[in-house]
C-alpha cells in the first residue's frame, strides 16, 4: 500500500460532548484520497458520531475536521463535498426511484434529458437499470440500498459516507453487497468511509480500519496487521476469536522477551510480537488465533517447532470447519478451572472430526503468539 496519496479527510484532536457525555475524545485521523476506510467498534463507541461530524450533521466541541485540505468548521452539511448512505437508507417515500436519484441534481445547470441520462447511468451502475419509474416504497431492502448509493454517487462527492449500510440485509445479500461495494469503490475511485460494528465486514472491505472504543481510536491499521498484530487485548478480543493464556515474564534482553506460559512452556518472543499498550492490569497474557495451531493425530508427523499435549473438551462442527475446545496439559487454572483454548481445523478430505475426550497433540510455532503486557 503506497502512502503517497493526498489526505482527503483529516481529523485533528476532534472532541464531541453531549452535555456530560464525552462521545469523541481527541480523534486524530487521516483518511487518504481513494481509500476504503472503516470505522469499526461496538455500539456506543462514537463511530457513528464521528461519521456524522464529518458529514456536518453534528458540530464538534473541539478540534478541526478538514476535507480535501479545507477546514469544515463553518461549512454546513449541504455544502460539504460528502454524501451519505444512511443506515435506514432514507429513501424519499413520496418520490419515484428516478426522482430519488435525481434529488441532488436540482441546481445542476444541465438540461432535463442530460440529467435523465445521468440518472439512468447511475441506476445502471448499481444494477437497477430500468427501475426509474418504480415507486420508492415498492422496493426491497437491497434495492433501497442501491437507490441510496446511486443517489449519493450521482453527485460525484469527494467522500462517500456509509453508516452501517449492510446491517439491515440478510447474510447472503450482505456478502453479495460487500463484494459489489468493493468493486464500485474501485470503479468510481471515491473515498469511502464505512461505519460498521461487524469486524468481518470491515476486514473484507477496507484498505484500512480504525478500531474505536469509548470515543477513542484504539488501533488504526490494515486488515491483516489488525488481525495478526492487534495493538492491545481489547482490539484482539473484538476482532475475530483470540485465545488468551496467563503468562509470566522471565526476562527481557536484546529485543526479546522470555515468558513462561503454563500449558505451552517457555517461549522467546521478539519485540514485534509484544503489545505494550494495555492499560488494564490483567497481567501479562499470551494470545493466539484458533487457526494458528494444528491438531495432530498419534501417528502423524508435523513440521512445527513446538508440540503440546491436550484433551478435547468440546467439539463444534460447522461443516467446512470444526472448532475444538482443548484443555492443555499443565494449563493454569483460573477460578479453579483450566480455561480451554479454542482451535479451528478445516475439514479437508481425509481428516476425521475428533471426539470429545480424545487425547491429542497440538502443533504450533512461537511466531503465532502475541504477548500483551
Amino acid at each position, binding site marked *: 500500500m503506497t502512502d503517497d496519496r493526498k489526505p482527503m479527510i483529516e481529523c485533528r484532536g476532534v472532541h464531541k460532548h453531549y452535555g456530560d457525555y464525552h462521545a469523541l475524545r481527541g480523534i486524530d485521523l487521516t483518511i487518504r484520497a481513494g481509500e476504503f476506510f472503516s470505522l469499526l467498534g461496538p455500539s456506543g463507541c462514537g463511530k457513528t458520531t464521528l461519521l456524522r461530524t464529518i*458529514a456536518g*450533521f453534528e458540530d464538534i466541541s473541539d478540534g478541526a475536521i478538514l476535507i480535501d485540505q479545507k477546514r469544515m468548521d463553518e461549512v*454546513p*452539511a*449541504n*455544502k460539504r463535498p*460528502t*454524501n*451519505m448512505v*444512511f*443506515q*435506514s437508507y*432514507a429513501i*424519499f*417515500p*413520496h418520490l419515484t426511484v428516478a426522482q430519488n436519484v435525481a*434529488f*441532488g441534481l*436540482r*441546481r445542476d445547470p444541465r438540461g432535463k434529458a442530460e440529467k435523465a441520462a445521468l440518472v439512468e447511468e447511475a441506476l445502471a451502475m448499481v444494477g437497477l437499470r430500468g427501475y426509474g419509474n418504480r*415507486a*420508492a*416504497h415498492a422496493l426491497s431492502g437491497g434495492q433501497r440500498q442501491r437507490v441510496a448509493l446511486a*443517489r*449519493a454517487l450521482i*453527485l460525484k462527492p469527494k467522500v462517500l459516507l456509509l453508516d452501517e449500510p449492510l446491517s439491515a440485509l440478510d447474510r447472503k445479500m450482505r456478502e453479495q453487497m460487500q463484494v459489489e461495494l468493493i468493486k464500485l469503490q474501485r470503479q468510481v475511485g471515491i473515498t469511502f468511509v464505512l461505519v460498521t460494528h461487524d469486524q468481518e465486514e470491515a476486514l473484507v472491505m477496507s484498505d484500512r480500519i480504525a478500531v474505536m472504543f469509548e470515543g477513542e481510536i484504539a488501533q488504526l491499521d490494515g486488515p491483516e496487521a489488525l488481525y495478526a498484530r492487534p495493538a492491545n487485548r481489547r482490539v484482539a478480543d473484538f476482532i475475530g476469536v483470540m485465545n488468551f493464556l496467563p503468562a509470566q515474564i522471565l526476562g527481557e534482553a536484546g529485543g526479546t522477551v522470555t515468558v513462561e506460559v503454563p500449558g505451552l512452556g517457555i517461549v522467546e518472543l521478539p519485540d514485534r510480537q509484544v503489545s505494550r499498550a494495555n492499560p488494564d492490569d490483567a497481567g501479562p497474557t499470551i494470545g493466539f488465533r484458533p487457526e494458528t495451531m494444528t491438531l495432530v493425530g498419534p501417528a502423524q508427523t508435523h513440521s512445527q517447532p513446538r508440540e503440546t499435549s491436550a484433551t478435547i473438551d468440546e467439539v463444534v462442527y460447522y461443516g467446512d470447519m470444526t472448532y475444538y475446545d482443548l484443555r492443555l496439559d499443565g494449563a493454569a487454572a483460573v477460578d479453579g478451572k483450566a480455561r480451554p483454548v479454542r482451535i479451528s481445523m478445516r475439514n479437508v478430505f481425509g481428516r476425521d472430526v475428533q471426539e470429545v475426550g480424545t487425547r491429542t497433540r497440538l502443533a504450533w510455532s512461537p511466531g503465532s503468539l502475541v504477548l500483551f503486557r
Partner: protein
Amino acid sequence: MAKGGLDAQARQGYTLIAPPFLYALLILAAPLLTILTYSFLTDGYLEVVRDFTWANYVQVWTDPIVRTVMLRSLMVSALVTLVTVLLAFPVAYYVSFLVRPEKKSLWLFLITIPFWTSYLIRVFLWKVILGYNGVINSSLTGLGIIDEPLTFILYNVNSIVITLAHAYAPFAILPIFVALEKIDRSLLEAGRDLGESRAMTFWRVTLPLAMPGVLAAVLIVFIPTIGDYVTPELIGGGKIPMIANLIQVQMLALDNRPLGSALAVTAMAIVALVSIVFLLINRRFLKVRS
C-alpha cells in the same frame, strides 16, 4: 369447514357492529331521509303538503339571496380553513420538531385546553374581546391610540374568521402534528446531505410528506365551519347570515320546512363535493406512503 368458520366469524362481526349500526341508522340516517323527503314536498301554511315538487330546489338554485349566502358561507369557511391551517402548521411543526420528546404530550395537552370550556362560551368571550366596548377597543382608546372604537373587528366576516379559527385550531394542529411525527428524521438529513438548504428540504421533503395531515386538517375545519350556526349568530350579529342561519330561518321562523330541507340538502351536496375533491387529492399523497 373453513367456510362455516368464516360464516361464524362474520356473524360475530355483524353482531358486534349491530348496536352502533342501529343507533347510527336511527339518529343519522332517519333524519337525513326525512329532510330529503321534505325537500321534495310542497309547503302549505303551517303544514307540509304531501305533493311531490321540484319547486323548492328551483327556488334554492335561482334565488339570488340563497346564492349570496351560500357563496358567503363557502368563502367564510374557506377563509377560516386557510387561516386555521396556516396558523396550525407552525404550531404542529414546533411541537413535532422542536419540543423535546418527553415534553410533547404536555404540549398536546395544553393545546386541547380550549376544549375545557363550552364552544358557546368561547364564542361569547370573543364577543367580549372584540366588541364595541370590548377588551381591545377599550384598551386602545384608554391608551389613546385610537379616538373611537374600531368597528371592523366585530359583526363582520373578520370577527367570524377570528372566532372560528381559534375554535378549530386544535382540530387542525393534531392531524398535522401526527403527519409530521411520522416523517423519518433521516429523510431531512438526506435532503440536507444532497445539497439542499433547510428551507428547500422543508419544501421538497417535509411539506409533501405532511400533506396528508394538512388535507385532513382542511377537511376537518372546512366541513363543520361551513355549517356553523352559533358564531355568525353571535359574532356576526345576525347581520351576515351564513347558510346554517338561513336554514334555521326557513325551518323555524318561517316554518317553510320543505324549502329549508332543500337548502340543507343542497348545502350538504356542495360540502360533499368539496370533500370528495380533497379526498381524491389526499389519496394521491397517501398512496405513496402505504
